């Protein structure tokens, strides 16, 4: 390489985004005077076709061998410009970006100051680019399979798309059945499709698909490796039921000593189940599971003379000797579709959720009103003789959403419409009931939403603008204290039942997924996408994609659309079969390496090892980098005592000139 650097500098106006606060003409005049710069140009949009053409032509005509682009963040367009270099026959790593938009023009107002800073940033980029070296991008094979974490509608859809394209899928679900939150819903807004009717066929498709391996009641223990070659370890928790023998007949649950005495998670605690259970009748797989936290035999070691489920099972499927099993496999890509948790209404004590039985959350109401729910779809409260039909029903919206006091500033996007839907279902079942909805704003933004909202109002549901301050009990009735903010009148509303439209929150076990895959969170604590607009399903970890509410609150159509997007991104990788791996990795100068092994200890990926080499007749140890394992963090380079380990494109000899440029007074 070491031909004399001939640098081209390209300064982008970015319309007026940069040019408004940075004097680009002045910057161009300054750039030409910098050492080794042959040509400097400015242009309105450097990333556009004519802009890139300008760079490519200069490389060809003026024999440039280094390029500096002063523009937006390298996180935005580094790849774009690298491609332009390749097209002009130059190694893509002879490029350096000076970030004069995000780090300069957008954050400073004074044109003089911003121009002075831009000059320094440019000077540093020019200083570094002179010392850059060409790098070769290696290609590795992509394992032709995908891991999908989470078996809700997002995970199911993504699995089906990938499996239908002909690739193997491992679908891992934590609970005993796939189906997720959607399976708990009665109807879906705004079309009032029966949720189970549109979901269960997909669940069955996923379970019976020859390309899909379903791992329910399982959790991912570890994921190592890199894009195209992830090694996955999954723990299949013991169900204490032999999968191959269980026919799903349910006799065990009927006989269980705790039958109808354990709170059902699926029914949000409104209904009960046995200790050996099927979460819901349409569960897939239709196999029973023993709940280790409630089963008498498992918690106390004793269940009568012998466990009744064992006696009851005609197939002899119940097996208390079963142990957790570890399953290991390789995948090329990972899709995270771990979903959400609903806001815990107890965190708004003023609404009395913990105190009063007739204050419910939206999801509890969903189970109560569902024909597959604990009451068979009858809207009744109380138990036994105390059973009654509520007549005055109030909904309160934005519980745990758009509420700084709970730390959730965001809108959960589904509550407005699910409230409207539940209100409609109430009116459908109890036409005489008086239904009112307390709201801050009504956000009916989706296809068919506004029409549905309009329909519900015409059905007699009253919308009252106001955020209730308190709910308490008086004479056996719930009293809602609220100000109608449209008439500026304080109200005391006596009702029989309150439904809190709780918002969506990141899953409380999201940390485990973050630790598995090094995901980032956005300020709302949902998983962070690589770019909010242009890479909404990608993550910062290559080969790992997001689908559904794990990335942020969304309704079913948006979830399915995103799942299809994530599947498509995964398929791009899987169908090409090859992927380029990180080129900016570590490198050892074996001539100066003294073999102390310090870098070996530092490396978090065990990508460096000591090997014995012959140096002028002596067998000595030197460090060597495994290029497939190195991820290019550069920690070894910072730790090397002799400077023998270096990170390509971030070598000491490349960073020190940057420091010198920035340290000097401009």
């Amino acid at each position, binding site marked *: 390489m070491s031909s004399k650097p001939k640098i081209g500098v390209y300064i982008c106006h970015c319309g007026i985004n940069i040019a408004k606060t940075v004097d680009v003409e002045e910057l161009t005049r300054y750039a030409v005077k910098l050492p080794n710069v042959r040509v400097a140009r400015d242009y309105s949009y450097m990333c556009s076709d004519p802009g890139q053409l300008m760079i490519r032509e200069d490389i060809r005509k003026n024999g440039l061998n280094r390029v500096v682009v002063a523009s937006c963040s390298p996180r935005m367009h580094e790849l774009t410009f690298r491609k332009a270099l390749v097209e002009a026959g130059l190694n893509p790593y002879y490029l350096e970006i000076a970030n004069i938009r995000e780090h300069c023009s957008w*954050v400073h107002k004074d044109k003089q100051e911003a121009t002075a800073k831009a000059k320094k940033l440019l000077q540093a980029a020019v200083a570094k680019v002179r010392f850059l070296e060409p790098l070769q991008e290696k290609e590795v094979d992509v394992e032709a399979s995908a891991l999908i974490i989470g078996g809700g509608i997002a995970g199911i859809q993504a699995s089906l798309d990938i499996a239908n394209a002909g690739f193997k899928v491992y679908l891992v679900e934590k609970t005993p059945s796939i189906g997720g939150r959607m399976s708990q819903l009665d109807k879906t807004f705004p079309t009032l499709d029966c949720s189970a009717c549109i979901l269960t066929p997909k669940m069955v498709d996923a379970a019976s698909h020859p390309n899909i391996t379903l791992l329910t009641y399982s959790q991912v223990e570890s994921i190592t490796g890199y894009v195209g070659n992830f090694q996955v370890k999954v723990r299949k928790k013991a169900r204490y039921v032999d999968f191959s023998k269980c026919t799903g007949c349910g006799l065990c649950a009927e006989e269980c000593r705790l039958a109808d005495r354990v709170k059902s998670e699926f029914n949000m605690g409104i209904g009960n189940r046995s200790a050996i259970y099927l979460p819901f009748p349409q569960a897939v797989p239709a196999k029973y599971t023993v709940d280790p936290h409630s089963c008498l035999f498992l918690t106390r070691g004793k269940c009568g003379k012998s466990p009744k489920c064992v006696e009851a099972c005609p197939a002899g499927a119940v097996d208390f000797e079963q142990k957790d099993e570890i399953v290991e496999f390789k995948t090329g890509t990972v899709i995270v579709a771990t979903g959400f948790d609903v806001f815990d209404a107890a965190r708004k004590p003023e609404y009395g959720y913990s105190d009063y039985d007739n204050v419910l959350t939206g999801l509890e109401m969903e189970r109560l009103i569902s024909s597959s729910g604990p009451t068979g779809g009858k809207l009744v409260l109380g138990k036994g003789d105390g059973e009654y039909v509520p007549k005055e029903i109030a909904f309160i919206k934005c519980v745990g959403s758009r509420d700084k006091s709970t730390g959730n500033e965001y809108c959960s996007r589904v509550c407005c419409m699910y409230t409207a839907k539940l209100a409609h279902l109430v009116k459908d079942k109890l036409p005489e009931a008086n239904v009112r909805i307390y709201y801050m704003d009504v956000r009916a933004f989706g296809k068919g939403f506004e029409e549905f909202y309009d329909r519900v109002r015409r059905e007699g549901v009253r919308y009252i603008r106001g955020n209730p301050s308190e709910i308490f009990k008086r004479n056996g009735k719930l009293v809602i204290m609220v100000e109608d903010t449209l008439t500026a009148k304080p109200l005391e509303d006596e009702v029989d039942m309150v439904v809190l439209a709780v918002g969506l929150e990141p899953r409380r076990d999201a940390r485990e997924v973050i630790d598995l895959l090094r995901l980032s969170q956005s300020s709302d604590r949902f998983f962070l996408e690589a770019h909010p607009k242009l890479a909404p399903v990608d993550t910062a970890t290559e080969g790992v994609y997001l689908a559904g509410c794990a990335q942020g609150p969304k309704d079913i159509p948006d979830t399915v659309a995103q799942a299809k997007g994530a599947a498509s991104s995964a398929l791009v990788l899987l169908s090409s079969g090859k992927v380029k791996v990180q080129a900016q990795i570590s490198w050892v100068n074996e001539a100066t390496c003294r073999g102390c092994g310090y870098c070996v200890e530092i490396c978090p990926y065990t990508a460096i090892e000591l090997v014995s080499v012959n140096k002028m007749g002596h067998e000595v140890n030197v460090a060597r980098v495994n290029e497939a394992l190195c991820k290019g963090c550069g*920690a070894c380079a910072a730790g090397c005592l002799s400077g023998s380990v270096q990170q390509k494109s971030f070598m000491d000899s490349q960073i020190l000139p940057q*420091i010198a440029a920035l340290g000097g007074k401009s």
Partner: protein
Amino acid sequence: MSEKFEPNVVAFLCNWCSYAGADLAGTSRIEYPPNLHVIRVMCSGRVNPLFIVNALQQGADGVLVSGCHPGDCHYMEGNFLARRRFALMRELLNFVGVDESRFNMSWVSASEGAKWKDVVTGVVNNLREAGAFTEFPRKKIDW
């Protein structure tokens, strides 16, 4: 230490969190002082302590190293290495008589554009107070 003194700060930001956080500050148009200049590295663990000394030698009045929050490192533990190295580094700088305000560390995530502004403003304000750094002989290296 005149009031007009404007310090020059060199900052090392990891690509995944702090650099992205600074990008977000830009995208959100959050204004902050123009005294700080960023060098992008892939991980705060890449920052050799010598870079700090070198920056001070080359004319910087202060240095900032910023990475992912502890536990959130894109490379698992690079920021822990950085934290350990710079705890020692700070002691060394203290020992040779360099004021603490010259060397700063922060954790700024990719979603903390507003925090980035606070960090920059804080560092720059402290250095405005501390004045120009003259303790090391300025050694201009012509690369």
